[in-house]
C-alpha cells in the first residue's frame, strides 16, 4: 500500500545570518509525510522543528533543497499561494473580528461564495463546539476556546496539510489532555494531514502516527511512537523520550548479524548486532526502567546490584540500584499492581532480569 505523499522535504537546509555568526537551523533534512498522517516533529527548543514548519508554511525560504506539496515544488511560493494552513503558538486570532469572522477569513480570501462560506463556518463551529460563542470577540473567550477557534479557522479552507506550532503549550495540564484527544478526533474526522510541532514527548507519543525526533537541525529518527520509544537507534532519542538506562557492553563474538555481548556483570548474552560493530567493540545498550524485573539474589539474572533508594509514586515504585562492580546507577520501575509491597529496602542485594528485546543497541 503506497499512500499518497502530502509533503516531502528534500535535502533542506536553512541558514540564518551570514559569516561567522551564521546559524544552521536545518542541516540537510529530508522527510516524507504521507497523506492523512498525524506527523509530529519532536525535539528540544532550537532543534529546528519550528523552522521546518515555517518552511512548509512559506514564512521562510530554504537556503538549499526543495519542498514538495503533493508532488509540486512550493519552496519559493509565498504563504498565500500554498494550500497549507497554520495554527500558531500564540493563536494569532484577529482581535477586531468575531469568532465567526475569524473562521470565515480564509474562505473569504479564497473568494468562496457567501452561502458556502456560511455553511462551512457553521460546520466548523460545530466541529470545535463553539456554536454559542460565534458572535463573541476573540478577546472575550478563554484560552482553550481561542485555541479551538484558531483550529477551526485553519481547518475551514480544508487545507491539504494543517501545520500546528506547539498549539497546546499555553494551556493548563487538564485542558491540554482534553485538547490532545480533540485534536486526534478532528484529524480523523477531517482526514487532513496534520504536522504537529512539540517539545513534549508525551504529547508526541499519544497523538502521532509517526514522529520525527530532531536535534541540532537534523532528524535523528523517524518512526511510530512504539518504534521511537522501544527501539531508539541513537542515544539522544533514547534519552529525550522517556527515561532510559545506558549500559556499556562488549562484543565478544559475531556470526552474521548475531553476536555475543558481555554485560558489566560478566554474563554473556546473544543479541543481534548492527553492521559496523566488530568483535571487541564497546556498545551502549538502552534499557527502559519498566522493562527490568527485580529478582532475588542468586536466581538467574543479567545484572545484580544494591538498592540505593526507593521512591514510591502511587501507580508505581522506582528503585535506584547501584550495579555490582561499578558506580553506575540503574533505574528500575515496578508497577504496583497489587498495591504497595514492602519486600525490598535500601541496602538489599537484588538481581535484574531483562528480556533481550528490551535491550536496544544504540548506533553511537
Amino acid at each position, binding site marked *: 500500500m503506497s499512500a499518497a505523499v502530502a509533503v516531502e522535504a528534500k535535502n533542506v537546509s536553512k541558514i540564518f545570518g551570514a559569516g561567522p555568526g551564521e546559524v544552521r537551523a536545518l542541516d540537510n533534512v529530508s522527510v516524507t509525510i504521507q497523506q492523512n498522517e498525524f506527523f509530529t516533529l519532536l525535539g528540544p527548543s532550537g532543534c529546528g522543528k519550528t523552522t521546518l514548519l515555517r518552511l512548509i508554511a512559506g514564512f521562510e525560504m530554504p537556503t538549499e533543497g526543495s519542498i514538495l506539496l503533493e508532488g509540486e515544488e512550493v519552496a519559493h511560493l509565498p504563504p498565500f499561494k500554498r494550500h497549507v494552513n497554520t495554527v500558531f503558538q500564540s493563536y494569532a486570532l484577529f*482581535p477586531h473580528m468575531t469568532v465567526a469572522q475569524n473562521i470565515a477569513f480564509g474562505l473569504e480570501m479564497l473568494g468562496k461564495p457567501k452561502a458556502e462560506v456560511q455553511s462551512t463556518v457553521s460546520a466548523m463551529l460545530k466541529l470545535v463546539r463553539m456554536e454559542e460563542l460565534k458572535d463573541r470577540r476573540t478577546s472575550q473567550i478563554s484560552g482553550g476556546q481561542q485555541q479551538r477557534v484558531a483550529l477551526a479557522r485553519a481547518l475551514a479552507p480544508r487545507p491539504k496539510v494543517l501545520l500546528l506550532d506547539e498549539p497546546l503549550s499555553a494551556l493548563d495540564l487538564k485542558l491540554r489532555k482534553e485538547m490532545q484527544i480533540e485534536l486526534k478526533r478532528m484529524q480523523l474526522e477531517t482526514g487532513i494531514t496534520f504536522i504537529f510541532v512539540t517539545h513534549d514527548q508525551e504529547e508526541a507519543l499519544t497523538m502521532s502516527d509517526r514522529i520525527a525526533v530532531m536535534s541540532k537541525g537534523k532528524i535523528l529518527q523517524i518512526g511510530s511512537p512504539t518504534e521511537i520509544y522501544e527501539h531508539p537507534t541513537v542515544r539522544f532519542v533514547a534519552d529525550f523520550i522517556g527515561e532510559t538506562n545506558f549500559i556499556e557492553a562488549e562484543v565478544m563474538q559475531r556470526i552474521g548479524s548475531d553476536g555475543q555481548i558481555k554485560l558489566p556483570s560478566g554474563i554473556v548474552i546473544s543479541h543481534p548486532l548492527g553492521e559496523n560493530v566488530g568483535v571487541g567493540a564497546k556498545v551502549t545498550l538502552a534499557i527502559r526502567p519498566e522493562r527490568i524485573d527485580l529478582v532475588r539474589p542468586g536466581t538467574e539474572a543479567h545484572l545484580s546490584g544494591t538498592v540505593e533508594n526507593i521512591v514510591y509514586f502511587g501507580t508505581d515504585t522506582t528503585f535506584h540500584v547501584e550495579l555490582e562492580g561499578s558506580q553506575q546507577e540503574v533505574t528500575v520501575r515496578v508497577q504496583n499492581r497489587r498495591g504497595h509491597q514492602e519486600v525490598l529496602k535500601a541496602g538489599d542485594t537484588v538481581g535484574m532480569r531483562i528480556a533481550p528485546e528490551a535491550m536496544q543497541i544504540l548506533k553511537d
Partner: protein
Amino acid sequence: MAEAAPVKPTTPKKWGRGFDVRKQTGFTTIAMICFLMLYAPILTLVAYSFNAGTSVAIWEGFSWRWYESAWANVQVQDASIRSLTIAAFAAVVSTVVATMAALATTRTKPFPGLTFIYAFINQPLMVPEIVTGVALLIFFAAIKVATGYTGLGYLLIAHTAFCIPFAYLPIRARLENMDLSLERAAADLYATPFKTFRHVTLPLLWPGILAGGMLAFVISLDDVVITELVKSGGQDTLPTYMLGQLRRIVTPEMNAISSVFLAISIVMVTIFFLLNRKKT
C-alpha cells in the same frame, strides 16, 4: 483636567527597593508650585474671558459678551476658517505620508540607512523651528518670484511637512506593538499582501492613525513661527492674528478666543491619549 492617580495602599518599606519619591521632604510643595505655575495663568485667562468689563485685570462681573464679539468678528472668523483648513489639510496629508513611512520602516527587512531614515523623518523635531521658518521663507520667496503664485499652497506644504513626524511617531509605535503573527496568519489564510493590509493591518492600525492625525491637527493649529514667516499678506491664521492683535489693545476678546482654542486642544489631546491607551 489631570485626574489624581488612585492612591495605592502604601506599605512601609526599607530604603533601596521600596524607594518612593513621593515620600521625600518637599515633594508635595514642589509639585504644588509646579501645578500652580502651569495652570494659574491659564485659569486666570479663562476666568477673565467671562469678564463683563473691558479689562483683562479687573473683574466686573460675568458675561458672554467677549465670546459673542469674537464670534461676530469677521477677522476672527476668517483666521479661524483658514487655521482649520490648513490644520485639516496638513493633518490628513501628513498622516497618509506618515502611515506609509511607518509601514516602510517597520514592515520591511531592516536595510542599511534605516537609522538615517528615522532621523530624516523626525528632522522637523530636531531642527529649530525658526531655522526651518527662515529657510522656507527664502525658498518660497524664490518660487513666488519665479511663478507669481501667492496662494495658500505655501502654508499647506509647510504645515504638512512639519506635521509628519508628529503623525509618524504614534503610528510607528502602534505598528511596532502589533503582533506580527497576525499578518502572518492572514498571509497563511490566502490573503495577498494588499488584502492583508486592508483587512488586518489597517483596521488594527486605525487608533494609531487617528491619534497621529489628531496630534498633527493640534500641532498645525498651534503653529506661530513658521506660519508667521511663510504667510503672504492677508493669510493670518488664528495664532498669528492673535499675536498681531496683542500688539494693539488687549481686550477679554483675546481671552475668549484663547479659551476656545484651549478647549479644542484639550479635547483633541484627550482623544489622542484615549486612542493610544486602548491597546489590544
